């Protein structure tokens, strides 16, 4: 008997006419690791909530079809019984913690189940040691970092000892290190402890290989359903971005085997290249000297000279930072949590004043009195787009900013709305939009003044791969128009794909800065998956397009290996899926 059996499930959220799930039929076996992926609005989170019993219990709405859990219909199951069998972890760590003490939070679910005290103590103790939470056991939950909070949320669910773990994008709000930690725990739970895992996820390069099965969703329907390799091939065929780079690379080659990890990928690549001399990639950085020369003539938009900063009573956050950002550059600032990236941004926009050193933006010192002058030319997008949304309509949101700066040109509103594809939502309440749309509205509300400098703090957090590349594309266009773009991100893939220059920070210092190939190409850990795939085989490759360009001709030389059955020549993926968006 399958663990879950879904039959013709259709679901409408209350007050909506469009179904969030359409005719879903699905079986999930005990002990399976199921990865559910798709764009925002594809219904993947809704499906997860149906399986966890939250829909329709918590949300209401209209539901059709049947969901069985161990052969019994989910809706007749007692809530307590279900909660003991199925646990769910959500996306945002900030919004899952209820108690103020770590230990109490772990016990929260157990209290709800009405378990006796000694049983609770035992389970809490077990989970605390399994999740390695003892150092923070007595801590105040609000003091924990995002990663620790998510670990705690997972621990609190595990204490209830469910057999099935449903995770809704558990790592989308986390930095890579914390994300890795969560995924490792999930992997262990599945492999060593036999948990059934249903994971909705966007960060595919880290979990694709863990999955026994991949479910690809779009528009409330399951569009593909099979092993990781099959999923990758299908997604590529349909031009969808929901495939990790390595798998996409090989799926585009129509390779009979689609590897899903760097290790497998490298083995395969080396076997293809056998006989071919290891590629002696010219080690020159990609920038030609022409353009570097040109850059020197360009105006410097941001210039930091020996900047030091420490919060009052705290440690030093920035140490001797010197950085020069020129007009028209697209700079990505990478670094781990607490490296001082966000502080650096705040110094740039004048929200903080440096302790020592000088900051010039547009030739003025923002920290002193230039703040009010420069902010008109500076757009700043914080980590949370919701911080921007409080007007009744999208249009008002843009007009609010214009009004503050005394601008009257309504044409600018039209243009920005058009460029960010928001015209349809002009009169909608921004709070009724999806997260990706909200981010675009927030972006529109700061770009409406036509600023020369665009600064974004973690813009890729929590948005899906498709939206991510749209955003990157948009920013690249802006940079090409002569605007300066500065992005702080954890997302190496994003930086490698779209930025021109990369700055790496560590413990308040800049440890590397320069053209992205020079910085990322040489890094082992801070490098995109494609670069890891090609290391030593073809150095200096960062993006998907580059890999195709560099490796393509070599691989085509042996088409017999590459092309399995069809004699297609167009294997270099002129289809949507193979060209980066």
């Amino acid at each position, binding site marked *: 008997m399958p663990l879950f059996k879904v039959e013709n499930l259709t679901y409408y959220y209350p007050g909506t006419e469009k179904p969030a799930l359409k005719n879903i039929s699905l079986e999930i076996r005990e002990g399976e690791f199921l990865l559910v992926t798709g764009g925002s609005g594809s219904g993947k989170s809704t499906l997860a909530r149906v399986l*966890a019993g*939250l829909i329709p219990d*918590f949300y209401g709405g209209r539901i059709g079809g049947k969901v069985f859990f161990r052969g019994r219909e989910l809706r007749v199951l007692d*809530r*307590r019984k279900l*909660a*003991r069998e199925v*646990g*769910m972890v*959500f996306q*945002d760590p*900030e*919004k*899952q913690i*209820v*108690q*103020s*003490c770590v*230990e*109490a939070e772990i*016990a*929260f*679910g*157990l*209290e*709800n*189940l*009405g*378990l*006796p*005290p000694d049983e*609770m*103590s035992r389970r*809490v103790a077990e989970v605390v040691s399994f999740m390695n939470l003892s150092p923070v056991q*007595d801590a*105040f*939950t*609000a*003091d924990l970092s995002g990663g620790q909070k998510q670990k705690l949320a997972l621990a*609190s*669910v595990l204490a*209830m000892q469910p057999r099935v773990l449903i995770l809704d994008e558990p790592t989308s709000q986390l930095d890579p290190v914390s994300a890795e930690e969560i995924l490792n725990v999930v992997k262990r739970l599945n492999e060593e402890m036999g948990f059934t895992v249903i994971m909705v996820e966007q960060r595919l390069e880290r979990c694709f290989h863990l999955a026994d099965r991949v479910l690809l969703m779009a528009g409330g329907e399951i569009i593909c359903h099979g092993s990781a390799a099959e999923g990758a091939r299908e997604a590529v065929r349909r031009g969808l971005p929901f495939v990790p780079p390595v798998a996409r690379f090989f799926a585009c080659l129509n390779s009979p085997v689609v590897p899903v990890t760097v290790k497998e990928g490298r083995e395969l690549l080396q076997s293809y290249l056998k006989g071919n001399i290891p590629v002696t990639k010219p080690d020159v950085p990609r920038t030609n000297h022409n353009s570097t020369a040109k850059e020197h003539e360009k105006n410097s938009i941001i210039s930091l000279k020996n900047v030091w900063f420490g919060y009052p009573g705290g440690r030093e956050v920035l140490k001797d930072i010197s950085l020069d950002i020129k007009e028209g550059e697209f700079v990505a600032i990478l670094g781990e949590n607490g490296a001082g990236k966000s502080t650096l941004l705040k110094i740039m926009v004048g*929200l903080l004043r440096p302790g020592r050193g000088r900051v010039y933006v547009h030739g003025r010192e923002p920290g002193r009195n230039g703040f*009010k002058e420069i*902010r008109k030319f*500076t757009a*700043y997008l*914080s980590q*949370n787009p*919701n*911080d*921007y*949304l*409080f007007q009744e309509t999208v249009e008002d949101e843009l007009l*609010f*900013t214009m009004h*503050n700066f005394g601008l009257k040109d309504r044409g600018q509103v039209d243009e920005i709305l058009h460029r960010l594809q928001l015209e349809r939502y002009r009169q909608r309440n921004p*709070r009724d939009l999806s997260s990706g749309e909200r981010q675009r509205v927030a972006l529109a*509300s*700061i770009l409406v003044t036509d600023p020369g400098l665009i600064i974004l703090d973690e813009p890729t957090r929590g948005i899906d791969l498709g939206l991510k590349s749209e955003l990157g594309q948009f920013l690249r266009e802006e940079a090409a128009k002569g605007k300066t773009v500065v992005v702080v991100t954890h997302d190496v893939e994003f930086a490698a794909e779209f930025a021109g220059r990369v700055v790496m920070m560590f413990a308040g210092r800049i440890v590397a800065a320069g053209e992205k190939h020079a910085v990322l190409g040489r890094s082992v850990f801070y490098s995109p998956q494609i670069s890891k795939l090609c290391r030593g085989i073809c150095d200096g490759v960062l993006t998907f397009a580059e890999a195709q360009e560099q490796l393509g001709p070599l691989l085509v030389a042996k088409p017999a290996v590459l092309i399995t059955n069809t004699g297609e020549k167009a294997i270099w993926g002129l289809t949507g899926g193979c060209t980066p968006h």
Partner: protein
Amino acid sequence: MFDRLFYREKGLFLQSFHPATVLVYLLVLLILSLIYDHPLYLLALFLLLALLIREVDGLDAWEGFLKAGVFLMLVVMMVNPLVIRAGKTIIWHGPAVPFLGKLDISMEAVYFGAASSLRLLVIISIFCLYNLMINPDRVLNLFSGVAGKSVLVITLATRLFPTMVRDLQRIREVQQLRGVDFDTGSLWQRAKKYSGLYNVLLLSSLEGAMEIAESMQARAFGSGKRSVYSRNMIRPRDLFCLGGSLLALLAAVWGLRYGYGRYTFYPEADFLIKDGATLVVLFIVLFYLSVPLLLSEGWKHCRFLKSKI
């Protein structure tokens, strides 16, 4: 500033009591401070509190508390002499004022004002000690058996509070960069600017509330009767301290029946030390009250005691 609870876990002996013990002990102190009029008794309580606060490393926090009480203290010191007409020793003959009558200030009234201020300092110190001695979470845990829902709301709100303060700061920055100057314009205009700020926060937090509710729902909240996970433990030290508190209260009430601890301010202030019994009663009460202090010293310096309490 609001990132952390006022309470800090320092691993001190005085922080290791059962919350109920601490509550009883502090309640006894509060009651005594309210029923005693005698300046000497109040002073003794104040000194005891000072020692206790020093024992929990709280002198800095205490300073802040006392500063906050200064205004109230001034009011008490000012208003009392202005109004009280019962004193005999007039030190200043004031003019007649329509509402208050003749403004004669008497020595006794000033004296009473000072004693009241002392009481104020004692009460402030008791609460200061409360804040330093006990994790609010453990107090709440104590009550979750009888008032589960209220306690849950309180803990959830407590844990959200620092997030809100942080959010508020971030939204403020965002709006500043969108051209809002919070520090310019008339008061009315500023209030309007802040409105935007609070609207954003209100919307975002209420949206967040739905997600929190969902996470609670997924962990079987409201699926039936809840049980209570308690992390509080009773040790011998709690029994000693509880016993001390109750004995102190008994001794004090017994003493009050015979007038020890009472004090007459008007028409003429009494002697500070009328007879030896005043001191004896004070000593007995104070001894029982200093049980935690003595235990704490013993815990630090005597290994035998440390293992037994």
